Each structure stands twice: as structure tokens, then as C-alpha cells.
């Protein structure tokens, strides 16, 4: 018999809740607590954080058992979509105010477009043209979203 992590997903989830709960209650303990009658800014979040951390601990403990069973297989993280989709949106946010909606849309499409397992560069170029035309017509002119169209 061995102690095994039967469910790695739950272990991570438990750890995540513990960390979030502890961080929350730690930060909350820095705010005025007040009393049960006159609760300060820290009272409710301190309580929430503590309960969350306890629940996280239960989730974590539950995922570790003394057993002979093989641990459940878990699927890995898809780094490529996560990184490229995130990067595309970040690039958009960082450049749109200087370079304008058109170029930012092109950047977003080209960067995040590479997140798909099947990249067709020509198609992405066409798509970015269509999307920036649509974005300018609908959002910048139609709905009046205050974003520059071209480079400032």
C-alpha cells in the first residue's frame, strides 16, 4: 500500500483554493475588523478567506488516499492556445491606442490565429482585413467606441 495522489486535478484545485483563501484572509486581516455588531472592512473577507482555505484543504486531502489503485490519468495543459490567445489579446490592448484599431486587429488576428493547430497564413491575412473593416465600421463609427482608427 502506498499513499497516492488519486486525483491530481483535485489536488491542484485544493491547493488553489487554499492559496486564494489564505491570501484573502491575510490581506483582510490588515483592514479594520470591527466587531460583530459594527463589522469593519476586514470582517467578512477574513471569514470568507478562512472558510475557503479550509474547504481547499478538504478538497486536497480527499484527493490523496492510501490505496493500490493507479492514479487517474489527467490531460495536460495546452500551452500553445493558452499562450497565443492570451498574447494576441495583450498585444491588441497594448498597441490599439497608439497604432489604431486597424493595425491592432491585424496583430490580434495574426498572433492568436496561430493558436489553432491548422494555420493558414493567407486565410488569416484575409480574415484580419475583413475583421478590421468590420471593427472600424461597426465599433468605431457605428457604436462610437472611442478608439483611434489609424496610427496616432
Amino acid at each position, binding site marked *: 500500500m502506498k499513499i497516492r495522489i488519486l486525483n491530481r486535478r483535485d489536488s491542484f484545485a485544493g491547493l488553489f*483554493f487554499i492559496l486564494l483563501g489564505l491570501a484573502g484572509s491575510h490581506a483582510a486581516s490588515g483592514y479594520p475588523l470591527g466587531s460583530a455588531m459594527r463589522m469593519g472592512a476586514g470582517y467578512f473577507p477574513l471569514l470568507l478567506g478562512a472558510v475557503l482555505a479550509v474547504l481547499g484543504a478538504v478538497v486536497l486531502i480527499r484527493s490523496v488516499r492510501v490505496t493500490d489503485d493507479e492514479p487517474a490519468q489527467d490531460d495536460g495543459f495546452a500551452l500553445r492556445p493558452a499562450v497565443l490567445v492570451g498574447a494576441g489579446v495583450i498585444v491588441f490592448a497594448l498597441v490599439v491606442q497608439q497604432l489604431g484599431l486597424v493595425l491592432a486587429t491585424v496583430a490580434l488576428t495574426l498572433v492568436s490565429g496561430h493558436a489553432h493547430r*491548422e494555420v493558414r497564413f493567407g486565410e488569416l491575412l484575409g480574415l484580419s482585413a475583413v475583421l478590421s473593416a468590420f471593427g472600424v465600421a461597426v465599433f468605431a463609427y457605428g457604436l462610437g467606441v472611442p478608439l483611434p482608427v489609424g496610427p496616432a
Partner: protein
Amino acid sequence: MELLSHLAIGVDAAFTGTNLLYCFAGVTLGTLIGVLPGLGPVATIAMLLPVTYGLPPTAALIMLSGIYYGAQYGGSTAAILVNMPGESSSVVTCLDGHAMAKQGRAGAALGIAAIGSFFAGTVATLVVAVAATPLAVFALKFGPAEYFALMVLGLVAAVVLAQGDILKAVAMTLAGLLLGLVGVDVNSGEERFTFGLPQLADGISFVVISMGVFGIGEIIANLERDERRDVAAVRVGRILPSRDDYRRSWKPVLRGSALGSLLGVLPGGGAMLGSFASYMVEKRLAKDPSRFGKGAIEGVAGPESANNAGAQTSFIPLLVMGLPANAVMALMIGAMMIHGIVPGPQVMSERPELFWGVIVSMWVGNAMLLLLNLPLIGVWVKLLAVPYRVLYPAILLFCCIGVYSVNNQMFDVLLTVAFGLLGYLFIKLRCEPAPLLLGFVLGPMLEENLRRAMLLSRGDPTVFLTRPLSLALLLLALALIVVMALPRLRATREVAFAEG
């Protein structure tokens, strides 16, 4: 009759040319986005929210509810045609709807879904109109202790309804409550969890969280899957159901409308609970239950009516008490706040044209869905054939601009990326995000009412147990917890979700 005069106010407000136009635009846009695979009503509404900012409040709410029904119907279309449910309430529709589509009867499935939804929508609109006034009078008796107890009940219900692990769902709710407290504390002026960032002083926008978790997070998860859709193989067939279809469907539609209307009102309820319940009821009542899952039209008619009825009656707690029953209503509350309307029992007396206008336009929206969807099914089929690699950059662009336009802040877009990655993590860790969003919206209200109740009782926590209404609500919440802790019932719940 009071009801008639109320409805007359609503008809006056809803049947103006511009409001009809906004209702139509909402329903069309909602269906258009909602039909795209992998996009549920929450993501659809969050994405289309900026479109309504410039409108007057009544028009904006009418359009948003139109978007909601449209998205719901679009989700059913995607479920039937390509077996990809946009959200949990159309999961059930996939079972028999997609089976019908494989037999070349997609048209009949879509037709009965539209007709059943319209009937259910009509019933539910009447339910909302009849129930609203007495409930609002009742809600005026609510003090802080009652509101607190009601919110606890709502959160518990959301946990029971979450798919998968209950413990993790509770933890997600608490995490949501914590996130909801970010920003300046209204009572003391103390900044909480802002890390000194001025952009966080007003709290995190609910659009940021919903777009991140339900939009970007879903996209990453979809990209990881090797998805193949066989739209081309689906023949729509004749759209109007046959006489035999009607004969089989009318009872499920009636039962679905009743179940959906009833279950939709429950906090934590909404569209999903009704459609699950209706499917199980129809299967149990059927002479030959083995037909279910193999294209039984009753399995489409019942749940589709139920989810539309539930979608509508879930407006009751929002309009009457200012409490969101589910994630979609949480978005609605945010939208109302943006237009300067504080939801609660006072809306009905202070803004009758808005309140009754929205209710009447619910029915108008359903009528439009029926007229719009049957002829346009061909268009939706074409839209479903668009490959995902073209679709998701477009969705990302809408997310970016939608989030930006809430506060005109690029910081919000960056924060959305963070929540997108978090949302993907949640999917990987099998943590349901819906309770998190509900907790997030209720967080500040829950704290506020807890504080007030404790202040009124001079720090005596038994106040929640000595006031009869609050006690009843808390006992109901406790009963729900006990029920889901019982091993036998827990097994039934797992079977119910496994069936779904």
C-alpha cells in the same frame, strides 16, 4: 382589472416603433451569436452588452432580454444541428434533437423547439405579469436578515445545480464572493484587495470576469479539443412538424411550460433546471422510454419549452427583489446598474413603463423568434459551417472591444486575459465557473445585508433564526444541503447529469 391596466402600460412602452426595432435587433443578434458553437447566453450577452450602452434604459433592457432569448434559441439550434450545446440548458436538447437531425428530421426538431418555446414563452410572460405585483408587496416586508437568508439560499441552490463536485462548487462560490469584494468598501471607504491599483478601486467589472472565464477561457479549451463538426451531413428536412409530431408533442409542451415556469423562479434556477426536469418527466411518462435518446420528439418539445419558460420566469427575482437567480441575470443586473436603475421592488412603482414594457416585450420577443427562426434556419445552418479557426479570432476581437467599452480602460482588457487563463484552469481542474460568477455578483450585497442585519440586532447572530421568514429561507437552504448530502439522492443527481 389591475393586471390589464398594467399590461396596457407595457403594451404602450413595448409597441413603439423604436422599441420593437430594438427587440427585433436583440433577438436577431442574439440568435446570430448564440448559434455559434461553444458560445452560451452568458458569453453572448456579455459580448453584445456594449451595443446597448447608448440606448435609453427601457430600450436597452428590451434589447438585452431579446438577446437572451435569441441566444437561448440559437444554442438549441447548435445543439440540434451539430450536437454542440452552448450551455447547460441545451445539453438535454442534444440527446434527442441531434438524434432527430441524424435521421434527417432536423427541421421538425427545430420547428417544434420554436413552436414549443413560443407557447411556453406566452405562458411564462403571463406568469411573470400575474406574480410580479403580489411578490413585490411581499418583498417590501424583507429586511436585511431576509435578504441575506434569500441570497444564501440562492447560492446554495446554485451549488446544488452545478455539475460535478459539490465541494468544489462551494469553494468556487466563496472565491466568487471574495472577488466581488475587490474595490472600495462602501461603508468605511477602505480599499480592499486593490494592490494600490486605481483601476481596481471601483471593483472588477462583471464583464471582465464573464468574458474572461466564459469567453477567452472557453476558446482556449475549444482550441485544445480536436473538434470535428459534420454540418454538411445534416439534412434539415421539412421544417413544419407533422400531425403525428404535434400529437406527440402537445402534452410535453404543456408540462414543460409549467415545470419551467415554476423552477425558473427559484434562486439558482433559471433555464437549466426546468429542461432537465422536463426531460426526466417525459421519459418517465412515456409508454416506451427506450425511444428517448434515439430521436423522440417529446425529448425536444418538453425541455425546449421548459428552458424558455424558465428563462423568462427567472426575471421574477431580478425584477421584483433585485436578486439575480443565475449567471445571465447577474449580467442583467450589471446592465441595469450601468443605466442607473437599481433593481428591487421599487422599480415597479417608480418606473412602471420600464417594468411592464420589459414584460410585454418578452412576449413580443418570443413571437419574433418564431417568425424569424423558421424561415432563417438555412442561414443558421450556413453559419454553423464556418470553421472554428476563422470564428475564434472574430470572437476575441468582440471580447476585446466589448470589455474596453465598459469603462474605456485598456487595463480591463489585460485583466480579462488573466481571467481567461484562470477560466481555462477551472475547466482543466473541473471547477464549474457559474457559481463563481453568481458569488461575484452577490458578494457585495451579501456583505452589505449581513452588516446591516447585525447592526440592527446589536451584534446578535440569532437574528437570522428568530425572524420567521429568514428562518424559513435558511431552513430551505439547509434542506437542500441535506438532500444533496444523502448518498442515494446524490447518486440520482449524478445520474441526472450523466443523462444530460
